[in-house]
């Protein structure tokens, strides 16, 4: 029990929670906390961003690459409203964050005071929980509860809104012992009978498929290990959502690639034709299911999820198991081994034969070029030249994001940071700042689009200030590529406002920020320049000028089913499985 001010309590609680870094931006209503930070001689290291949205995305990158809670400190009014996009992003992708916002003094709340906004009202639907702390006595509990709620169960962002007079007020602080929230108790252990039943269904399956998602990554490294073991033990094929990439190694022969709107032919056809779908930590999002009434019509579905509200939301499942992925997977392994369960080898062999035929389609194939850099080629080369290093990848949102998901082969979880649910352009650069801060000696690359990266470009200044050598690898096609692709395929080629007529010179822009700029326009120069990018121990903006008309395939168009995918013209038709000259097949 120590007497201190509310502002000091904030620092004390952060330190007690083991927080090492906090991303933020000062302002009138948080000045007491910034003062306490100063006087504590940065017990918690503060990273000054250039815009509050950047602070939240940086904290997301930090959280997703470490498994820890990401922390943010911003002021009232515009500070809080600028954080809203990041909060919503973190809610959609289940990223644990604690965001502390300043508020006008309690007697001015509701008075339309300067820089006042109804922060808890605005952030109620985009946080897992939020607090407006109106007395100093509530502050220590609110701060510690915030960390507990953010990181337990299905993780998510929590806002603690602290009026300025509470920051000045004096109270007693004590570090709480292990506490139990009176109402909030997420269920972690799956029902043992259902797990047993799931294993029996797996043993009897003829055409089984694992469909995994971000929940496996969020559950922690043990979940990925158990998943790998279970997939090996059963011999079943596995696909994953965008958010789940890396939980299972992409180099493994049982890996079918990502599924969904831009997933591989083999992953989507397997989803459509399987007789048993084992969904683990994924949520049947509309990017995955396509047309609901034609979604995997013949399969029995097992769904493991920590959040009961994810179950039967879009797709009715036959066997729901509410629980943490790591725990349920471990129990599935135990049950499988205890009964010396054997899968139906003969049926499985026939299923793999069928999958081999789908794979032969080479749905990720594209036409190569010696004159112009194909975006897929750029990402392939980036992968080849960085795969043996300790690499983390973030992305923005659009075509480049899908190509990164398709062509960058992730072998480990927590290496892939992308905005999946909300699809926030401008996520990748600030996220890379957060990742680099957590992993100072690793290679951190933001695979970006030139349109997305302009939304939060100012954060390169943060990277320079803190000497964070992030690599911003811009796939520059001068278009909002995914918008352009949809306009080409679905809106009669009417390219309404999807072309950026006045782009900056990214090399000069890098120099203006005291970063390092590289431009690459020819395929022959690509490897050398990527190596240069890796060698430069400073933030780099890499302007990779690519074919502006390339489209992202395969693609499930417009509310269609998995078996109605569109392929690029370089893919192999079933009748013609021979490689044609000039085709670059992957």
């Amino acid at each position: 029990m120590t007497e201190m001010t509310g502002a000091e309590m904030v620092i004390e609680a952060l330190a007690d929670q083991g927080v090492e870094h906090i991303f933020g931006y000062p302002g009138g209503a948080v000045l007491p906390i910034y003062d306490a930070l100063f006087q504590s001689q940065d017990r918690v290291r503060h990273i000054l961003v250039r815009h509050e949205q950047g602070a939240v995305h940086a904290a997301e990158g930090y959280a997703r690459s470490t498994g820890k809670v990401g922390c943010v400190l911003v002021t009232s009014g515009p500070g809080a409203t600028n954080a809203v996009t990041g909060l919503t992003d973190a809610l959609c992708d289940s990223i644990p964050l604690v965001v502390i916002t300043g508020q006008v003094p309690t007697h001015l709340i509701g008075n339309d005071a300067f820089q006042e906004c109804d922060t808890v009202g605005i952030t109620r639907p985009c946080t897992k929980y939020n607090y407006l702390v109106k007395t100093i006595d509530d502050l220590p509990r609110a701060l510690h509860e915030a960390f507990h709620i953010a990181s337990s169960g299905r993780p998510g962002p929590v806002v603690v809104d602290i009026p300025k007079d509470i920051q000045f007020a004096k109270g007693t602080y004590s570090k709480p012992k292990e506490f139990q929230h009176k109402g909030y108790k997420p269920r972690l252990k799956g029902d043992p009978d259902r797990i047993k039943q799931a294993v029996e269904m797996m043993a009897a399956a003829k055409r089984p498929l694992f469909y995994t998602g971000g929940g496996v990554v969020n559950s922690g490294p043990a979940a990925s290990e158990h998943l790998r073991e279970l997939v090996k033990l059963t011999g079943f094929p596995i696909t994953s959502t965008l958010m789940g990439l890396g939980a299972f190694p992409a180099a493994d022969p049982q890996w079918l690639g990502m599924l969904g709107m831009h997933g591989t032919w083999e992953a989507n056809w397997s989803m459509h034709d399987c007789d048993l779908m084992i969904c683990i930590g994924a949520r049947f999002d509309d990017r995955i299911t396509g047309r609901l009434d034609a979604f995997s019509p013949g399969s029995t579905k097992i769904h493991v999820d920590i959040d009961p509200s994810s179950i039967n939301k879009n797709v009715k499942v036959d066997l729901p198991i509410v629980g943490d992925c790591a725990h349920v997977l471990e129990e599935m392994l135990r049950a499988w081994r205890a009964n010396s369960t054997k899968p139906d080898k003969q049926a499985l062999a026939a299923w793999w034969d069928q999958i081999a035929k789908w794979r032969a389609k080479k749905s990720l194939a594209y036409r190569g070029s010696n004159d112009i850099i194909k975006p897929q080629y750029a990402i392939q080369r980036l992968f080849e030249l960085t795969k043996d290093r300790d690499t983390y990848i973030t992305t923005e949102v659009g075509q480049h994001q899908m190509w990164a998901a398709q062509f960058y082969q992730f072998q480990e979880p927590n290496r892939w940071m992308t905005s999946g649910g909300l699809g926030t352009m401008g996520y990748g650069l600030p996220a890379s700042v957060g990742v680099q801060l957590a992993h100072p000696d690793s290679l951190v690359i933001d695979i970006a689009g030139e349109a997305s990266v302009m939304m939060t470009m100012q954060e390169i200044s943060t990277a320079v200030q803190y000497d964070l050598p992030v690599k911003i690898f811009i796939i520059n096609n001068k278009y909002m590529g995914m918008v352009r692709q949809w306009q080409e395929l679905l809106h009669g080629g009417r390219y309404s406002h999807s072309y950026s007529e006045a782009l900056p010179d990214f090399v000069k822009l890098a120099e203006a920020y005291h970063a390092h700029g590289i431009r690459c326009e020819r395929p022959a120069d690509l490897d050398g320049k990527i190596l240069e990018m890796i060698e430069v121990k400073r933030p780099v903006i890499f302007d990779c000028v690519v074919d502006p008309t390339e489209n992202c395939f395969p693609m499930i168009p417009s509310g269609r089913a998995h078996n109605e995918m569109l392929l690029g013209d370089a893919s192999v038709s079933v009748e013609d499985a021979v490689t044609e000259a000039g085709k670059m097949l992957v």
Partner: protein
Amino acid sequence: MNTSTSHYPSAAVSERVETRTLCVLVDNEPGVLARVIGLFAGRGYNIDSLTVSETEHEKHLSRITIVTRGTPMVLEQIKNQLDRLVPVHRVVDVTTAGPAIQRELAMVKVRGKDEHRMEALRLADAFRARVIDATTESFVFEITGASEKIESFIALMLPIGLVEVSRTGVVAIARGPEGM
């Protein structure tokens, strides 16, 4: 929305819509009602009726009774979405959980003279409604019962001279010795 140019799946084929009464036990803290109502508004669920009051003062627990409509899948979602709100302790669907009693209280103001007054009193008696205010030209009746009973009473008062109605909305409790 033209499905051929949308990149979202089309709406599911509509299923049978059912009405349910949910009892929700919550921490009585600032903003808790906004969380519940915001959930319904944000996710496009219906609220036919909603009542709320603190029921356990020492524990600061409030009980919210919500009458809602939806397909079975949506109703399951509503229950699960409510259940995962941090201040929510329990959600019980009293329509399906077992036999339950549902009641509503209404105050009904009727204005009229002579034969209309007599008729109003006779009907009130039949419905076991009590007079809680009277002037020479008006009555306020208090009536308690299932929503259908209150609806019929109001319908009968309409031609007699109905002025206004104030209703609490439905409250519900399970029959038998067990608590929620």
